[in-house]
């Protein structure tokens, strides 16, 4: 599929560094799927769909900065949705988010909540102002908060909020890889799903740039079950744009 022209209809500041861009196009994703966002003349980067028709972006480098310069009425090219998305399980689920990790998990929370699944969210961020989508998670269940600087909630990492892991039917996690690795080490791997970040080039499962051992994040993932990840380099090293190994 060629990029679809998606016109920005609304821009919302979520935190001082994070903005949501709404488009005129709905991508009808499964929660956890992502799109490739082409900022023309700049770069094309992967972004989770935080709503059916929106992405939520943190300004970190040249492409995200270029995105932050766009205004309502401007457009980007979008390919996708790609990947598998989360597999929603019945019972009482727990979501563990770190920073931007809330972006793919918020639609999951809403979908699960709407179908009567009990949802608890452990929401982590660097500081109070950077907590993302707190209200969306609160609307469907209990939310516990942790911040690195202690400006709100628990002072420390969100992983520290996770003590009763075995009480949940399934755990869903997205955040920095080190954080996810810590979570994986605390849970029954088969009862946890993780949404991974890797360097994405093609986005369609061909080039292999995104591989975690044999697994393609863009096609077989980005969501993987913990028991699959246990057997891989996940949490140990990732690859840079060249395919060189980089310690996580």
């Amino acid at each position, binding site marked *: 599929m*060629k990029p679809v022209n998606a016109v920005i209809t609304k821009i919302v500041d979520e935190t001082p560094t994070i903005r949501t861009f709404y488009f005129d196009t709905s991508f009808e994703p499964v929660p956890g799927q992502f799109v490739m966002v082409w900022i*023309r003349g700049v770069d094309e980067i992967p972004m989770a769909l935080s709503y059916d028709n929106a992405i939520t972006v943190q300004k970190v480098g040249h492409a995200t900065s270029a995105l932050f310069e766009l205004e309502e009425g401007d457009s980007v090219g979008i390919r996708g949705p790609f990947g598998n998305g989360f597999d929603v399980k019945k019972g009482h689920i727990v979501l563990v988010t770190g920073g931007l990790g809330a972006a793919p998990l918020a639609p999951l929370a809403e979908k699960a909540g709407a179908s009567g699944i009990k949802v608890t969210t452990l929401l982590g961020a660097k500081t109070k102002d950077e907590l993302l989508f707190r209200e969306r998670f609160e609307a469907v269940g209990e939310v516990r908060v942790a911040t690195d600087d202690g400006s709100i909630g628990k002072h420390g990492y969100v992983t520290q909020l996770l003590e009763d892991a075995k009480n949940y039917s399934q755990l869903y996690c997205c955040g920095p890889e080190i954080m996810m690795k810590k979570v994986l080490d605390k849970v029954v791997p088969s009862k946890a799903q993780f949404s991974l970040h890797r360097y994405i080039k093609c986005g369609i499962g061909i080039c*292999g740039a995104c591989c975690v051992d044999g697994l393609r994040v863009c096609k077989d993932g980005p969501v993987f079950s913990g028991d699959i990840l246990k057997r891989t380099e996940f949490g140990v090293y990732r690859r840079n744009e060249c395919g060189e190994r980089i310690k996580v």
Partner: protein
Amino acid sequence: MLSITLTGLKLKNPLMLAAGIMGTTGGSLKRVAESGAGAVVTKSIGLEPKSGHSNPSMVEVDCGYLNAMGLPNPSYKNFQEEIDTAKEGDVPVIASIFGGCSLDFSEIASALRADAFELNVSCPHAHGYGSEIGTDQALVEDITRAVKDAVKVPVWVKLTPNVTDIKSIGLAAEHGGADAVVAINTIRGMAIDIESGYPILGNKFGGLSGRAIKPVAIKCVYDLYETLDIPVIGVGGISDWRDAVEFIMAGAQAVEIGSAVGNNINIFNDISSGMEAFLEEKEWTLDDIYGVAHEV
């Protein structure tokens, strides 16, 4: 019934993973090997780590894909461990390598242990590499000879279709001592986003792969088979067992599969069983169909 000996390598079937497809990490090569491929070819590896062209680096078009990866690779200095991991898949691992001159090629080849080398002189979108040298007979012959001198394993040369006469380039490889040629790499192509006028690929243009290019690849294989004494390996647009049979009939001793792996990593098993059923029904062997289009 599908096993063959290809330039001395024993393959359980003539279906190989093409270069540049899930070929940067040992883990992914191993996975493809375990999914039924007869052999796997790595991503093309160069002298220094290279991050490739900026994104978009691949886009789907009618009946195929355009890509301009720009040969991202971790350099041969970081690649032996990947090959070693790939070897755990228990099929031959062919190292695809690229460079700007014969010295580059022989430096890389001497440093890597692999079951064979495939020389990429045909990538259409890497400046100073690939098809910029693969269109020059003298260079191709020179590079082939340099690598042959540097290694003891078979050396294959991968050709570009973006030439007036692919046969003459194939002959140059043969003269240089190549054990086989591989045809074809992607065809130069380009797509433009009509909403904005921007060329879609970060590199503006790239190489066309997938079903669109099969008839072109079949013709190249057919011509090379007529011209060369060394085996021809076919690649370009294979997406089912019928395509693989068509290539072998055109004169390919084995084939490589690229783009189609994206949507079906199990394609090697699927094609093997399809080919076996076909040959059984027809009461033919692989040898019966090899190059048969030249005899009818």
